[in-house]
């Protein structure tokens, strides 16, 4: 079995430790690298929309936790 080393791992670094500035060829390599997760939004036709990985149903309704405060109505997290 051959192991294909990813281009991701083989940059030539400058004196500050940086690879050459990223360009479209490099982006294309990253998009094709199976170790890289790539998302494009909002472009449903691309099939590359970010899909949330965590969908955990809250085990109880918030109303069971408190009488008055419903975090679902808040804007603390989602903007």
């Amino acid at each position, binding site marked *: 079995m051959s192991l294909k080393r*990813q281009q*991701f*791992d083989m*940059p030539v*670094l*400058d004196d*500050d*430790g*940086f*690879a*050459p*500035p*990223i*360009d*479209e060829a*490099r*982006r294309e390599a*990253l*998009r094709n690298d199976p*170790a*890289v*997760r*790539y*998302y*494009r*939004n*909002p472009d449903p036709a691309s099939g590359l*929309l*970010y899909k*949330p*990985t*965590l969908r*955990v149903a*809250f*085990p*109880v309704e*918030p109303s069971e*936790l*408190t009488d008055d*405060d419903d*975090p679902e109505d*808040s*804007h*603390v*997290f*989602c*903007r």
Partner: protein
Amino acid sequence: MRSIDVESDSYLDTRFVVAAAVNGSHHSIAAHQEWLRLVSTRRSVYFSSFLRVEVTQALFRMGANPARLPADVRARYILDRWEHDFLIRHRWMVQGIEAFETLLATFAEVYELPVTTEIWQHSVPIMAHYRLWSIDAVHVATAQMIGIRNFITCDLGFGRVDGLHVILVRDQS
């Protein structure tokens, strides 16, 4: 035709992402403004997959130390019961993670980069040279190895790194 601004690709540090996702957290106002800029200008953003671990850690610490959050947030999420109630902790974590993932879905282009052995190796001299924590050095190493100099963070420490264009996002104290 691509309409993404490829000249300004940016790397996202964890503290910026957490601040942008959680209203009322440290530097959340400035982070929100920077997030708006990134989204409206369709910037491509990059981050290390390790950021996911750091985000959950940051959320946990935030919930466990509610003094870090405004009183109305503490009250709304009943964080004073954090130590004693799994449901309180679970709700805070889940909603925080959903906010993080909602944030990711707003960027025009997102590259989530793996932590490789090469990046880890590259991070070691970065730690030694710039006196960074290991995780911060991994972020710098990741950005360096893909050739991204724009580095969005709330952390002053990254300013020590040569060649890094630090976009410091902090609320005025």
